[in-house]
């Protein structure tokens, strides 16, 4: 019925039989209600004289007893037919769309979306929590399967963001509050103090050199604690913006007030350091929002028998990325904690993925990055590399070919999930990786110098709080919920708010960039349309009936109800979102809701129970 002939059938029937109400009993209205409404409108009948019954998702797909399911279908259709009689002709509401866009998260997804929109002439606010954009991709060394240098393909984009006149880049900032609705969001952003003025700092980094701390002593978050930094620092050399940050927890001036402030001295006439810089609260108006807040790495300490944090030479994959990287803490050398090169390395797949005890889902990228790391480690150290895997997931373009190449390079593949990691016990610091090799049908105990845990991707720890800010949902795995997994993967149930990248679910860089392009396109579609149509399901006060009892006033979360001079309630149609709470509360029945009138719902109930 959704196809052209089906639509034409409806239109023809309306014309031939002069129909004035249409009920379609099919799938969920969430999917195709608008298509049918358009068909009805095309036949010159008001589209709100249409009602849809969900017989598929709510009946035929979920019940096994045919007779019961048929009885249920009849009840639902009967209810709809009775309800639709009471439908009124309505016009959808139109609201204007503000053309500015807010993008939350400055990883590759946020960066790409920002550039796309900025190039289209739209003004973008890119808000990033860290002191630099780049996200996780900035921490990678090479990307699979091409072994492109991550920084080489990322940094030009980062620079483009910095210099684009249509992008306002706010790093070291986060979103505190979001109000409004599609096309008209009012967002409050907190800009945390760097204690270095962004406009004045030229990124010469001499202050870091000059810091009274001669040695870097603070564990460096960008290098996952493997390296050290000073209290005044830049996250990594190619950071954008090229502005230093002062950490008040470790800076002597903040802790004691008695530092020589050599940093200020050397900054001289630029005078960019300000120890009293206050936090700034800024409120912006945007029409659409894209969330690109990325992922967090699974915490390997949750699997104690893998020995992370216990045995010094157990590393996570991301830590190895930093070791392998030329600008990392070891200058690109893959070495053990004591500085030796490993002669044997075991890579453990599916750490924190595909497991009922941690996360049931597959993190999608780990097989490929495990292959990449196997290749890089072997190349750098000549070590014997063992990959312990459950399945080899290499679905993308050139992925399978990469797997073949790595296999040909002599990496050993053992199909078995690692059950235990323990010291070999002979004083050489080696660790035994124990797994059942399911192809050979025997238990293997392989001693290695270094273990790499291929950790899965998880949602951000504060994903639940963030999504509440934006009034969207999370799926059961904790990632942001898309409107439809197949047909609307970057839209959410909040109109005008889109998601892109790993915040929606684990994925690699090509898929992330595809999604950020999709999200940018969706935002652009709204902006260029200029107006958005909202369902006309607002509540309204029957002005002659309202007694001014004020019961409704405190109930509206959008402050859409006001008490007017004439001593009765009045609902602002633009602010009303159509929840209907005031309608249910009005004790004299003086507030009604379009599309959800009491009469319509009573008819539905009676229709359902007609043969009870």
């Amino acid at each position: 019925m959704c196809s052209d002939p089906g639509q034409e059938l409806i239109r023809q029937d309306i014309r031939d039989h002069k129909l004035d109400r249409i009920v379609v009993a099919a799938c969920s209205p969430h999917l195709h209600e608008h298509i049918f409404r358009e068909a009805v409108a095309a036949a010159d009948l008001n589209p709100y004289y249409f009602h849809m019954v969900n017989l598929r998702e709510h009946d035929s797909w979920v019940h096994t007893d045919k007779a019961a399911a048929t009885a249920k279908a009849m009840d639902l259709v009967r209810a709809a037919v009775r309800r639709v009689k009471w439908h009124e002709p309505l016009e959808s509401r139109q609201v204007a769309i503000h053309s500015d866009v807010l993008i939350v998260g400055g990883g590759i997804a946020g960066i790409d979306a920002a550039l796309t929109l900025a190039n289209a002439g739209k003004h973008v606010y890119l808000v990033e929590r860290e002191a630099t954009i780049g996200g996780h991709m900035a921490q990678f060394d090479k990307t699979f399967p091409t072994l492109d240098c991550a920084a080489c393909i990322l940094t030009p984009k980062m620079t483009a963001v910095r210099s684009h006149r249509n992008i306002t880049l706010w790093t070291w900032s986060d979103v505190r509050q979001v109000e409004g609705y599609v096309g008209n969001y009012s967002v409050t952003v907190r800009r945390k103090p760097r204690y270095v003025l962004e406009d004045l700092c030229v990124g010469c980094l001499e202050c870091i050199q000059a810091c009274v701390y001669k040695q870097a002593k603070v564990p460096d978050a960008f290098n996952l604690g493997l390296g050290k930094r000073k209290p005044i620092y830049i996250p990594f050399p190619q950071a954008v913006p090229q502005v230093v940050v002062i950490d008040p927890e470790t800076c002597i001036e903040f802790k004691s007030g008695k530092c020589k402030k050599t940093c200020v001295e050397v900054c001289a006439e630029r005078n960019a350091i300000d120890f009293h810089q206050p936090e700034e609260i800024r409120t912006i108006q945007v029409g659409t929002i894209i969330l690109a807040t990325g992922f967090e790495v699974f915490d390997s300490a949750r699997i104690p028998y893998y020995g992370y944090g216990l045995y010094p030479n157990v590393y996570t994959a991301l830590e190895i990325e930093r070791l392998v990287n030329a600008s990392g803490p070891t200058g690109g050398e893959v070495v053990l904690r004591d500085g030796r090169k490993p002669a044997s390395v075991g890579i453990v797949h599916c750490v924190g993925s595909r497991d009922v005890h941690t996360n049931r889902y597959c993190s999608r990228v780990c097989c490929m990055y495990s292959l990449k790391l196997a290749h890089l480690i072997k190349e750098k150290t000549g070590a014997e590399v063992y990959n312990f895997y459950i399945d080899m997931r290499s679905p993308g373009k050139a992925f399978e070919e990469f797997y073949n190449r790595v296999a040909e390079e002599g990496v050993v593949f053992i199909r078995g999930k690692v059950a235990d990691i323990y010291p070999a016990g002979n004083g050489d610091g080696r660790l035994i990786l124990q797994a059942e090799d399911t192809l050979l049908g025997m238990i293997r105990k392989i001693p290695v110098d270094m273990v790499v845990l291929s950790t899965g991707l998880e949602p951000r720890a504060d994903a639940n709080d963030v999504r509440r800010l934006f009034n969207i949902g999370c799926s059961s795995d904790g990632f942001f919920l898309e409107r439809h997994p197949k047909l609307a993967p970057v839209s959410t149930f909040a109109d005008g708010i889109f998601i892109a990248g790993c915040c929606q679910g684990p994925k690699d860089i090509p898929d992330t960039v595809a999604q950020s392009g999709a999200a940018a396109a969706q935002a652009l579609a709204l902006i260029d349309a200029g107006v958005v149509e909202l369902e006309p399901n607002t509540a309204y006060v029957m002005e002659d009936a309202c007694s001014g009892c004020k019961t409704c006033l405190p109930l509206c979360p959008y402050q859409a109800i006001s008490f007017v001079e004439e001593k009765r309630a009045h609902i602002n149609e633009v602010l009303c979102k159509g929840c209907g709470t005031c309608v249910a509360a009005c004790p004299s029945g003086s507030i009604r809701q379009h599309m959800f009138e009491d009469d319509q719902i009573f008819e539905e109930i009676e229709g359902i129970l007609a043969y009870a």
Partner: protein
Amino acid sequence: MPEAFEPKIVAFFCNWCTYLAADLAGTSRIKYAPNTRIVRVMCSGRVDPQFVLEAFAKGADGVLIGGCHPGDCHYQEGNYKALRRYELLRRLLNQLGIEDARFRLEWISAAEGDRVRVVVDDMVEKLRALGPRTPAYRREVA
């Protein structure tokens, strides 16, 4: 042999969480008891106690209100109002001889397709145990 008693449940599901959860149960082909009939509202806050009473009056064996988890209401607080009304209405219904098992308020998020099955199957089982409702809630006087 008389047909086994199958309770009829009218479910008021909010558009954003519970209705979508039921959709998800559908797309996931999760199977559950066919005893519910869903009436869609935008928010559980729209559920007027009159609807609940009408459902019982017209023959429903059970009424289920589905809303978003506290803190997650698409409209901020509608589910809290539903909760307040539910607590008072439940007490009123008890006085009128309608047991708690017949009137439930459940929080189901859009991602919890399986929870729809759990809630519905549980409610149906408990209503079957309560047995068929007495023939009429009213006695005709005429």
